[in-house]
């Protein structure tokens, strides 16, 4: 049996299953913000946005959108009960001080030692954009990465060492891809879940660094979730 690789919403769904009650969570731009849609309603968490919103709620309906109530991605959002809003210095003191339990970030590359490259693809004719990426990667208590396992051209994104400019060193703890869930441990990358129907050899072939498989490695399963058009 061959299973399709997860789509990006299924990766977001799988990531959301590991969010625990009471966590303070920061979600990076792009795929990570979709994780919020799949946190089970009975799991009470606060989402921190680095522009200072502590307790981001769902996106605002168009007729309720307020240009002053935005997240770090300029999305017009709502706030949840118990939310508060602080200035940028306090927001980043919260991040650097280790008060954010988990930052869920996109990535271009992750190295076997947990080094992260997610801010600069060295695109020609483009200015840099670092935003809060380095602060979150270096200082969140735990950093989870959510990304496609390989590039569009099929090259591995999990590598012995990053080739793109680093965001932070030795920071990634867990990686969610369309093919696997992988922990970064002191002994290297350990596969916790692998897409059903994909062999260990096939996953290794799509991965740049050495992979170990956990003794209790399980199939990676999600519900069907259709991508929007």
């Amino acid at each position, binding site marked *: 049996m061959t299973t399709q690789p997860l789509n990006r919403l299924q990766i977001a769904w799988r990531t959301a299953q590991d969010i625990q009650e009471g966590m303070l969570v920061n979600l990076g731009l792009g795929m990570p913000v979709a994780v919020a849609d799949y946190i089970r309603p009975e799991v009470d968490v606060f989402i921190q946005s*680095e*522009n*200072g*919103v502590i307790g981001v709620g769902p996106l605002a309906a168009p007729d309720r959108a*307020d*240009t*002053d*109530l*935005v*997240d*770090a*991605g*300029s999305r*017009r959002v709502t*706030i949840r009960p118990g939310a508060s*809003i*602080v*200035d*940028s*210095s306090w927001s*980043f*003191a919260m*991040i*650097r001080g280790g008060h954010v339990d988990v930052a869920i970030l996109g990535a271009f590359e992750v190295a076997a030692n947990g*080094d992260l490259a997610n801010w600069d693809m060295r695109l020609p*004719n*483009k*200015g*840099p*954009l*670092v*935003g*809060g*990426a*380095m*602060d979150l990667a*270096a*200082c969140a208590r735990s950093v989870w990465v959510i990304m496609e396992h390989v590039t569009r051209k099929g090259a591995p994104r999990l590598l012995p060492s990053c080739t793109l*400019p*680093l*965001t*932070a*060193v030795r920071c990634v703890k867990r990686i969610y891809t369309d093919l696997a869930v992988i922990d970064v441990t002191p002994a290297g990358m350990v596969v916790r879940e692998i897409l059903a129907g994909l062999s260990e050899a096939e996953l290794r072939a799509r991965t740049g660094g050495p992979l170990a498989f956990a003794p209790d490695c399980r199939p990676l399963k999600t519900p069907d979730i259709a991508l929007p058009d």
Partner: protein
Amino acid sequence: MPIDKRVASAAKALADVADGATVFISGFGGAGFPNVLIRALRDRGLKDLTLVVNSATHRYSYTHELIEAGLVRKVVCTAARSHSKEPSAFERLWMEGKIELECVPQGTFTERIRAGGAGIPAFFTPVGFGTELTQGKEVRSFEGRDYVLEHAMTADLALVRADTADRYGNLSFRYAQMNFGPVMATAATLAVAEVRAVLDEPMPHEHVQLPGVYVDRVVAVAA
């Protein structure tokens, strides 16, 4: 003379800013851009400005007008990338070597400004260690972790957007308008706030999010 920081117009509030000024500009994600003040600064036609602003390219900020008008020598920011395929005004000038860029991680950006207003000349942060944004900076290890030395930033002028003010310069912000505004006001020689409304009465103390001691001039602008 009783304290009264109200000024009749943005132009009057910026009348004494000089060429070569370093200018803090608040705003993040669409909230808190002091766009009336930015335009008034553009109309002054000053030269060789250094802008310290979170994004040099945000589509809702008028910061790009200062850049397009050729008034800016250097930008210190966390983001300098166009939203579209076309390069922004900043990126065009930067690629032509006509404008200088210092790209700073956002938490370091705001902490450097906070330090500038809080009497701290420099500080160590773990952010950016081992990356090209901190190359050449002093590194020290504390309790087994490596930290980078970063220096405080101050400015000649801060342009800040808030919701309401009173005659004493006390400010209150709506939602995420606050962002960099409070620290920028603390670290600038001249702090000017544009607000939706100036209250006739003193602001109730529990509504004050930035004490007026940090704010020199307030201008009411159309919402």
